[in-house]
């Protein structure tokens, strides 16, 4: 593997972790939106997200920086053509983060309501817009060059809509799965989140299946990749998805975290596998986009050294979060 390939893998690990960790925080916000009068659920979500969401959010910045350092023309093309959904996602990120801490710091009911609503709605919209961006790239609607693609049709199209809906669904699904175990450890009844996890799991599965038909019609190249080279990943995702439903049924809340993570990971790695070595379909490859070898090597060294500092610290944070006593008051 050359340095560009390694950096590509590192970047995709970052995207995967952002989806698995940051995605679940957005999903928590989606459930907050739908919690209605179930204030216990809302409290549990706040308890689960509070210590970790900022650290989880950094994965997004990590991905942006690796992309612009390692593959600058791809960054420039994606950001300039898709500036509408990305601006909306960025604003969603502002509202989600600040409203979450503002609600925590407020005591009056009206301000808590207002900030809570902003937190929850932006938790729904941000992954949706990021999903449309994924759909735009995957369906070959972002050509290389500055704002060379159609500013609207690039992300308002069947594949992008599928991407947006799937992103929201996956976030909500992961959050519900994680929250089952969180509820058990907090001494609460996990039944509500179990029901939600099964429900979203089924919906996401159905949307993904229907999505295959959409891709065949709207993004044939991606469809061909997913049904040939990336087929093992797609099958693995389906198997893990079914296993997760079974585990939820049997209330295996710890094990279902693993299978749900594997299901999402498999489908996320299916996409690059399907289009490799192309970064911007139909034809712009990672080799054409890669930065100079000096930059790639230095970046890898910096990130490697950084990982030695960051990964143990993340481990400590997650241990702290798991041991935090749940305050029911």
């Amino acid at each position, binding site marked *: 593997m050359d340095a560009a390939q390694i950096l590509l893998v590192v970047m995709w690990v970052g995207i995967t972790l952002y989806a698995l960790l940051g995605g679940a925080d957005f999903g928590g916000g989606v459930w907050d939106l739908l919690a209605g009068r179930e204030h216990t659920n809302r409290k549990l979500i706040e308890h689960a997200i509070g210590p970790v969401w900022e650290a989880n959010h950094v994965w997004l910045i990590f991905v942006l920086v690796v992309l612009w350092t390692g593959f600058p*023309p791809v960054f420039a*093309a994606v950001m300039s053509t898709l500036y509408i959904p990305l601006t909306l996602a960025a604003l969603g990120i502002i509202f989600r983060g600040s409203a979450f801490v503002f609600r925590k710091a407020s005591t009056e009911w009206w301000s808590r309501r207002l900030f809570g609503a902003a937190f929850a709605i932006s938790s729904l919209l941000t992954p949706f817009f990021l999903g449309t961006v994924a759909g735009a790239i995957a369906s070959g609607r972002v050509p290389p060059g*500055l704002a060379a693609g159609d500013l609207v049709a690039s992300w308002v199209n069947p594949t992008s809509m599928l991407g947006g809906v799937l992103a929201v669904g996956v976030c909500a699904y992961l959050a519900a799965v994680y929250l089952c175990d969180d509820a058990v450890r907090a001494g609460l009844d996990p039944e509500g989140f179990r029901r939600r996890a099964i429900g979203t799991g089924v919906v996401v599965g159905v949307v993904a299946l229907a999505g295959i038909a959409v891709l065949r019609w709207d993004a044939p190249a991606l469809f061909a990749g997913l049904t040939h080279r990336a087929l093992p990943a797609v099958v693995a995702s389906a198997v893990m998805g079914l296993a997760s439903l079974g585990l939820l049924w049997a209330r295996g809340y710890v094990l279902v975290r693993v299978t749900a993570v594997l299901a999402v990971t498999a489908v996320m790695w299916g996409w690059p596998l399907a289009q490799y070595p192309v970064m911007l379909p139909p034809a712009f490859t990672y080799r054409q986009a890669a930065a*100079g070898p000096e*930059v790639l090597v230095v*970046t890898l060294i910096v*990130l490697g050294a950084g990982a030695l500092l960051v990964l143990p*610290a993340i481990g400590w944070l997650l241990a702290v979060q798991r041991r935090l*006593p749940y305050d029911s008051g």
Partner: protein
Amino acid sequence: MSPDAVMSTLALAAGPASPADMLAARMQMGLSLGWHIILACLGVGMPGLLLFVEWRAVRTGDADHMLLARRWAKAIGVLFAVGAVSGTILSFEMGLLWPGLMDVYGQVIGVPFAMEGVAFFIEAIFLGIYLYAWDRLSPRTHLLSGVPIAIAGVSSAFFVVAANAWMNQPRGFDLENGRVTRVDPWAAMFNPATPPQTIHMIVAAFMVTGFATAGVYAVALLRGRRDRYHRLGFLIPFTLGAVLSPIQIVVGDYAAKFLAEYQPTKLAAAEGLFATRSHAPLSLGGIVYDDALHYAVEIPSGLSMLVGFSPATVVQGLDRVPSRDRPPVNPVHLGFDTMVGIGFFLLLLSAWLALNWWRRRDLPRSPWFLRLAAVAGVAAVVAVEAGWIVTEVGRQPWIAYGRMRTVEAVNPAPGLWAGFLIVVLVYVVLTVATVYVLRHMTRTTPVPAVAPQERA
């Protein structure tokens, strides 16, 4: 316009950016940066200040110090979160607004940003531990868990400002047919502008932290809450700012001498100097029109003395570059005067306290001291904003000095002005909400000495 017409306008193929879009992109970047920099300053300076009071609390068991630590930690919880998201927007905007810069030079300035990413991770992770595990850890471990936040904050400032310094002194690459080759990331990161800019900014961040925090307590003292808690809350941060004020004047002088050698056009704009000359005066205030500075107060040969310690020193004026290569002079000159003026105001205020403390170990008796100290909190922020106007507007028309014009870097997509209007709206709402929440936090009853988790 009908929806279809709107769509077809938006779907227009991208051409060169219109002047309106170019202006919108610059204003949007300025707004987001100017907003974020306030929180970034607190992010750099607050952890050190907080750890200092917590350390004293742990060492002496003093309740007032511990109360300060608890309350500042609570404020940091909010400020860091808002800073994290307002900082994220900037990394989006690097591509949304300036894809031309990133397309060509993204890889050259990528390494300091990658390092900043690592620092940001450390900051966010340890902040989660520090804030949420306060009563789960021993006092010593808790104190230690805050140290990485302080180190990461200062490092982040260094890395980000180093990347900005590169825009002033682009180094570390060759250009072939519009693409960079033979990149030397280290030469890019440690360019000549890096030392003056990073030192100036990091000192500024600690000054903002000191004076802004002290300003909050100055208001409380003025309202008659003159107990030990409020006095400590004023004195500790104010001392930080006061100690740094004279240092910053020296650093600022160093930064200006750097400009004289490396970016003389920016210095000429900052000083409103059009004609290259010896015995160049130091001009305070005034306004520029018809290619000349009017109504300024002039100190004869002042600028020549500052640049080269001699009235005979020749200082380069704006006349050395064609007008298309000059920055807009008024904002840069007035921004510069504002920054320097506030710097000296803070210095005098610090000296006032130092004198009183030396004589009678107490705050000055005059209520004017506290009134001015309350103003100093805001003034320090204004000085940082003015300084960034000097740096950023003073670099125009270049985005990478001498290498790429800002107009070449801007996103050619039409309709950037519409995005700008939405962003303005969002920042207005964000500002109102942030101020509301922070004011609310200063009014609520002090945090109990036990963390909320343990009350249950």
